[in-house]
């Protein structure tokens, strides 16, 4: 049986203590279901633990590995030359994006160039398509000091650094 009791917000019909208790139980089960669901979520705690073990064994995560590499490059801007990445292969696309996005972020406010023009680079395919070696004078004009060859070989990515030749 519902009754009307006073409530500061407005008049709300009150419920029986038994119904209230049942709802408390239902809400508690919902909280528990969330916690258990979180343990089984493919991208939550279990994956985080796996990643932590990977870090502890000395194999750094890709984001940390790439960021560290780019932060340690010599002073000045950089030109990235991506070699061996096939835009029609999903794994290559993912890896190129991982490297490029981590590099641009870690390198900022220094610049990482991949093309000479004001072209639109929206994805991995655009980067591969427009990644042409520019002229030495252009590199000097952009204050590029290092050319970086980023080569996809089998399932790994290897880096090689070259200083920009004098004009």
């Amino acid at each position, binding site marked *: 049986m519902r009754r009307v009791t006073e409530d500061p917000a407005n008049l709300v019909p009150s*419920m029986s203590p038994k119904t209230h208790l049942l709802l408390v139980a239902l*809400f508690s089960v*919902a*909280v528990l279901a969330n916690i258990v*669901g979180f343990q089984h979520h493919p991208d939550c705690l279990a994956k*985080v633990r796996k990643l932590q073990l990977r870090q502890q064994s000395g194999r750094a995560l890709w984001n940390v590995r790439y960021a560290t590499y780019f932060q340690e490059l010599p002073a000045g801007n950089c030109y990235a030359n991506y070699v061996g990445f096939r835009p029609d292969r999903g794994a290559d696309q993912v890896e190129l994006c991982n490297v490029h996005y981590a590099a641009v*972020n870690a390198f900022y406010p220094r610049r990482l160039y991949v093309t000479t023009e004001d072209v639109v680079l929206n994805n991995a395919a655009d980067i591969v398509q427009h990644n042409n070696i520019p002229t030495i004078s252009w590199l000097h004009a952009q204050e590029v000091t290092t050319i970086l060859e980023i080569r996809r070989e089998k399932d790994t990515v290897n880096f090689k650094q070259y200083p920009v030749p004098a004009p």
Partner: protein
Amino acid sequence: MILLLATLLISGLAISATKRPITVEILGYAIACGHALTAVALFLFSCAGILPGPGPLLALCVLGGIVCYTRKVQLSIVPPAAQVGRCSRGIATLGILVVLGAAAVLWYTAYVCGIRYWDALAIWCLKANVLAHEPVLTSGYFQDTTLSFSHLDYPLLVPFLLAALANTAGDASAFQFADLYVTQLFGTAAIVYGIVRSRAGIPLGTLAALIVVTLPTAQRWLPALTADSTFSFMLLAAASAFWQWQRSGEKRMLAIAMVCLAGVIFTKNEGMAVLLLLPGGTAVICGLRKQWSRLRPLAIGYGLTLLALTPWFIFRSDLPRTHENYASRISVTNLLDHSDRLPHVLVAFAREAATWTHWGLLPVLALVTLALNARRLRELELWWIPLFVASVLGVYIAVILVTPWELKHLLPNLSDRLLLHVAPLVVLWCGYYCASHPSPPELADESS
């Protein structure tokens, strides 16, 4: 972090607090208003050539303090004895422990994984990095199409707050950035707890807040350092404040609603849908209830919100749009042409919502709430939040229909994030409408 938190709280309290002691939900609203005010102010500072950092934050903090002082705002919190409902100390203590546990998981994930999602790295953290180093008007970044993978035209609330955090703390790690998301976690819990508690008592209020903070999808996306969880928090604050104003007509609630609406628009482009839906829907309901006197303050508040965002709209209009311009593709003919995709989209959303490892028992709770309110199904008030949630999802579905992307690639990556935007509102609705205060024992005995 302490300076940023103080700025968020004090600038937010300048809008949301009054001469009465503060309730828990007002603390949550203060955090949300603080996000919007601080980010918009940092954008204006940046336009003037001042980088986000300790100086602007301190200025905002002092300004907020002056406003609080001149308005004689009371900063004391309502004592528990004066709160409505039966206080179950055990549940309340457990609640605090679980919220702290959720925050600890968030910090742990951010610490272990760093910035691991490509959109966090390429969009939000890169923008934060740019804004921390260069003023917006002179930065070459916003016109550099070789960086257009970072969506140059995306709104800047999250990047500005992250930039302020990085420049203040002198460290731009994911662990440091996670502080901001922990604040949002507390804000979400406070709003849900405060509103549900006012009707259903402390135990159910606490449990509803816990359901929000422990949602597996929320726990996945909070440490991801993207803008989705922030958008979800701002949308909860804005929509619930509009809803509260609809019910009470309190001017302070309208002010909170408008500030949070500005925050929603400044967080993600999806906010542009809400820009029309929330005030428009509220105006329609005012009209249906013949509350004509409320339309004037609503229009004034809306006008002021648009005015405050005008610098951003002007700046945004000049940014290169190199990705899909979804708004231009939405037309009746285009929607009809792609209507064959509708069943796939609806099935994908339904499947996602029914995945218990992502959403726990949330769909069950929504059904139980509907069943418990079977006699009230014709009341407009019951449908306010569901209609708003359905409208937001309707806009998302319309955009997905006309997008040229293949659904099999798009939906698995998108559906949980889109549902996360409205999930806290659904929990708030379930908690609020599925229960009310239990009747006193003697009355219950009488009725039996």
